[in-house]
C-alpha cells in the first residue's frame, strides 16, 4: 500500500548496532540494538515497513522505516484488577467499619 506524501506516520530507526553500544552494559541490553521511534509527516510517498524521510515537530528531517500510519495512543486504564477492588473494600472497612455495623 502506497502511503501518500504528507501523511503523519511513526518511523523506527536503529541508532546503535549491538557492536556499537556502550561498554559494560548488562548482556540483555548489549546484545540488542539501540532503537528509536519518532513521528512526523512523510516527505515522499512510501510503503509501509519501507524506509522513508519524515519532517518532525521541530522541522528536522529524519529517515527510518515506516511502522505506523496515523499512530494512535494505545495505553489505557488497563484490565480489571481484582486486588484493587479488594484494597478498596479493606480501606473503606478499616476506616468506616463494616457496612452492617
Amino acid at each position, binding site marked *: 500500500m502506497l502511503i501518500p506524501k504528507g501523511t503523519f506516520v511513526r518511523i523506527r530507526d*536503529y*541508532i546503535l548496532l549491538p557492536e556499537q553500544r*556502550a561498554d559494560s552494559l548488562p548482556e540483555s541490553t548489549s546484545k540488542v540494538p539501540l532503537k528509536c*521511534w519518532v513521528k512526523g509527516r512523510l516527505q515522499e510517498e512510501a510503503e509501509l515497513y519501507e524506509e522513508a524521510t519524515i519532517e518532525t515537530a521541530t522541522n*528536522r528531517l529524519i529517515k527510518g522505516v515506516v511502522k505506523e500510519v496515523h499512530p494512535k495512543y494505545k*495505553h489505557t*486504564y*488497563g484490565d480489571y484488577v481484582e486486588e484493587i477492588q479488594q484494597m478498596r473494600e479493606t480501606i*473503606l472497612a478499616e476506616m468506616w467499619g463494616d457496612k452492617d455495623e
Partner: protein
Amino acid sequence: MSSYDIQDLLNRKNSIIKNSVGLDYDTFEFSGIGFDYEKMMHDAGYSFEEVRNIQNNNMVGATPLIELKNITEYARKFASPGYGARIFLKDEASNLSGSFKARRAAISVHKAKEMGYKGVIAATSGNYGAAVAALAAKYGLKCIIVQECFDSKNLAQPEILEKARACEAYGAEVIQLSVGPELFYTFLNLLDETGYFNASLYSPYGIMGIETLGYEIAKETEKRHGKFPDVVVCTNAGGGNLTGTARGVRRAGAKDTKIYGASVNLEGLHMASDQDFNRKSFTTGHTGFGLPFAINPDRSDVPRSAARPMRYMDKYYTVNQGSVFFITEALAVLEGLERGPAGNTSLAVAFKLAQTMKKDEIIVVQESEYTGAGKHHQPQLSFAKKNNIDISFGLPHKEKPGQNIILPISAEKIDVQNIDLDRIRKSYLKRYKNKKLTDEDYRYLSDELSVGTNRVKELLKEVKA
C-alpha cells in the same frame, strides 16, 4: 535519526554542554576535588523573587497545601494513644502540566527564551518532559523530549507512554528509545545538531525552581498553625526534588524541620537492563535512581549537578511498590484525590512515620502528580501481571522487586525501611580512598555529606579498611 560515534561525542561533551546550558562550569571548580556549589547557584542569575515571579506568571507554584484529615485518622487507628501526626499534602498536581516538575521547567525554559535559544531539549521519561513541553508551548519555543521507553520486544511502560502523549499534546517532538544508558549520547547528539538549550533537571535552574515549593510549605504551615512543619517527606530519585525543597524550607527560616527522602525499593533490578526494564512498576521515585544519584550526584547530564541530596537529607526511607499502590487507592477513596502512584511514594512513608510522631506534630508530603490512562495503579498492576509479576496480599517487606508485588493486607502493614546514611556516605567516599586530600577537599566533603570533617576522616578510614 542518525547514528553517532560515542567516543566522538564524549570528546566534545564539555563544549556541547557549555553551549547548551549557558553556564561555564569551569569557573566554579576548586583546585582539588570540589566546586563552589553556592557560587554556582548564585551565578545562575535569578533571585528567589524573580523565580517566584516567573512561576506565578506561568501558572506554576502557589499550589494548595491540604490537610489529609481522613488519611490522618486512618493512620491513627494503628498508632499508640497520643500518637499520629497530622498529615498534609502539597497538591503539586495543580501546577501547569500536573506535577512539581513545572517549577523546574519554568525557570529553565524562561532562561532559554531569555538567552535567545530557539528550542529546548530534555532527556526524561517522566513528568519533567510534560512540564518542559508545556512551558515551551507557553514561551513559543520548540521542544524535544528524549525518553527511554521500550524494551527490545517493543513493550513499553504504560506510564511512559502516557507521558509521551502529554508531551505531544503540548506540541513537543518525542524521541522514544529502547533501553540503555546511551540515551545520554542521543541527547548530546541532539543538542549538538539543533543548538537547543539543555533543560537539564540538574542545572541550577532545575533546582532553584523547587526552592519555592519548600518555601511555600514552611511559610504556609507557619501562617496557619503557628509553627513550621516537624517533618517534610520528599520522594527522591535524582535528588533535585529533595535538594530544592530543603533549600526552600531553610530559606523560610525553618531550621528544625527534618527533611526525609522516600524512594520505592527496587533493589536487585538493574536500571540499564533490557530484561529488567518492564519488571518494575515505578519508573521514577525509586532506589534505582535515588541511591546512585545520592552516591554520585555528578553522574547527571551537566558537569556539576545542582541536585545534591546528601547535603540536606536527615533520613532516607524506602517503601515497597505494593504499599504505594495501597496508599494511592486510600487517597482516592478517603480523600477524593485521585493522583498518580509515583508521587505518592512519600505519602506511603508519611503514613507510617506519622504513627511514630505525636498527635500535635505536622508531617508534610511535598508533592502529588496528575493521573491518567497508563499513569495509574490499575494499568500499572495490570501491566505487571502481563509481565508475569506475581501480585498478592501479605507482608510488604517480603516483596522481591521484579518477581512480585506484595500489597499490604491492611494499612497497618504498610512498612518502611530506614537506609543507613553512613552507608551512602561511605559509597560516596570510595572514589577518594587512594587520593591525597587537602583541607579544602575535606571541607567540601563535609558540606557534601552533611557531617563534620572529623567524621569524614573516620568514614574514609572505614572505607580504606
